[in-house]
């Protein structure tokens, strides 16, 4: 067992212990961090494994949250039914939405998802959808009660449920990474032309990666609806999508545990900065994104690689060879070496 696996296990145990050490609002914040981490992990698959960039995952987050609300309020089904419904719906919608854009250059996907992120709040507010979505006012979501008479508080139970999903989704992402499909995705990231020459269906795997990342965002949205117990269109503005990108960049694109760092960053930093002035947080984020692109383009995972260099092994696929053709899809965010 190497030091990386060991530290991941310790991190996992520490995460389980959080709600028994922290109290009240802090547990709520920890839950929010884990929810964002799940959504960011979806972006890790899309950007880190497959080398695409999408700006609209706030839309899938919203979709997941609303589907959970509809499952509970309109169809009156138990909450655990909401997860497969939202997951499948987000996957299918992501798959269908991404397909036209993914056949083209990466910039079209960025453009299409940008418009998706901006267009979703007005759609959620549409007056004829009001019976389902609650319209402008939003709608309340009943929280699931602690099952099996477990001696847990509501916030502790929600945290552990969220954490369970984090572990599941992390396992899924890792399994994907070492599977045939995962390798196909990484091959496309590193060199789409060579990947196609090897017989990989580039459009299919790109769309698959996009659908999967939408699924992650959708599940995160479900959890957020349950935890906050209220949804309205104004919680899912374009800025949610942007914050997810911020988390992705801060945590590092290709490193799944980095998603937690990214999630913690987007939850905690605004709290610190907003003590001075709310819009300052946005300016700070923006400046940070630009400075990071210029100075430490690999995010936190880059810093960890720097201090704990990993021995190169045959299975090490997290660091692709440098691209020479400058095509769309390299994983290394940052300027090229000159």
């Amino acid at each position, binding site marked *: 067992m190497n030091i990386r696996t060991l530290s991941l296990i310790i991190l996992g145990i520490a995460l389980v212990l959080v709600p028994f050490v922290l109290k009240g609002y802090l547990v709520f914040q920890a839950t929010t961090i884990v929810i964002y981490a799940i959504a960011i992990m979806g972006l890790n698959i899309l950007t880190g494994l497959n080398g695409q960039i999408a700006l609209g995952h706030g839309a899938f987050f919203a979709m997941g949250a609303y589907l959970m609300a509809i499952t509970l309020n309109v169809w009156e089904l138990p909450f655990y039914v909401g997860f497969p419904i939202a997951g499948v719906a987000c996957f299918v919608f992501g798959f269908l939405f991404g397909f036209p854009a993914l056949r083209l250059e990466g*910039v079209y996907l960025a453009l299409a998802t940008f418009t998706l992120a901006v267009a979703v709040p007005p759609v959620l507010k549409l007056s004829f959808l009001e019976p389902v979505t609650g319209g402008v006012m939003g709608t309340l979501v009943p929280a699931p009660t602690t099952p099996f008479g477990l001696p847990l508080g509501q916030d502790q139970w929600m945290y552990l449920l969220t954490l369970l999903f984090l572990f599941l989704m992390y396992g899924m992402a890792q399994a994907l990474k070492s599977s045939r499909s995962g390798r196909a995705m990484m091959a496309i990231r590193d060199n789409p032309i060579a990947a196609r020459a090897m017989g990989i269906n580039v459009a299919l795997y790109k769309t698959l990666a996009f659908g999967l990342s939408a699924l992650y965002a959708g599940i995160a949205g479900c959890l957020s609806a349950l935890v906050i117990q209220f949804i309205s269109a104004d919680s899912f503005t374009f800025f949610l999508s942007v914050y997810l990108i911020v988390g992705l960049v801060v945590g590092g694109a290709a490193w799944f545990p980095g998603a937690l760092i990214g999630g913690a960053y987007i939850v905690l930093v605004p709290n610190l900065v907003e003590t001075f002035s709310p819009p300052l947080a946005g300016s700070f984020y923006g400046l940070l994104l630009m400075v990071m692109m210029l100075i430490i*383009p690999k995010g936190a995972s880059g810093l960890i690689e720097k201090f704990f260099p990993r021995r190169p092994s045959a299975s090490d696929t997290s660091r692709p060879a440098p691209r020479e053709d400058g095509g769309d899809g390299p994983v290394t965010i940052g300027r090229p070496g000159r």
Partner: protein
Amino acid sequence: MELFVKYFLSGLATGGIYACVALSVVMIYKAIGHVNFAQGEMATLSTYFAFQGIVWGAPLWLAFLGSLVLSFVGGYLLERLIFRRISGAALMTHVVMFIGLFLLINSSMGLIWDFSVKSFPSPFGQGQIGGLIGYHQVGMLAVTAGALLALSIFYQKTRIGLAMRGIAANPESAKLVGIRVTHLTALGWGISSALGAIAGILIAPIVFLDPFMMLGVIVPSFAGAVLGGLTSPLGAVIGGLTIGIIESLIGAYVPRVGIELKLPIAMAIIVCVLVVKPSGLLGARILKRV
């Protein structure tokens, strides 16, 4: 029929704004091969410059002129000081940089001028012509048409315009024949940003000024740019005007929800264009050397 003409004209006027923004997006896309997602926020910032000038008591036209000059210089410097450094970098770097710029400008505007909605004066005054079209909309049409005409003359008839077209066609060869590529790329950013300023100043009296003003404009403008083909300036203008007209007519004829559907329609148009004809109406087909 009168209803149709009325909404057609008003759509044309809004379409002129979309055309300006779409054109400014296309200009940068042609120069660096990336879409500037912060284009709308840059235009909003330019509008705030004009607003500040008016607050300080400058005459309207002087404030507008000052904003145009500031935007031009700002766009030029933005390329020279920041985006120059990542030229040639991956798509992802550019997208994240533009998103960073978006957040930075948006929040800074909120920080400086707060998030409250401000009214913005129209230089053309109130009133209507024959109950069909407002003075301001006529002014919008005239100014955008003038700006687009001036720009096309600049590109077709001047040496600098020719050099800029040369860079767009083939930067390497342009460099070899002695064109100052870096300087002219920055100049393109300056022009694009000034064009955005015109759009922002013209739309502000209608939608009112706040830091999110351009979010509702940038999406239809992107739709216009994609519809026209991301690489074609003429296409961007035609696309922008078309989107404006479609949007206005749907708002007029679809009861109740027509206006709410503005952004979803723009998005649907983007997706449809990508499915049916990805190169748009006039864009170059996307070919890649293997």
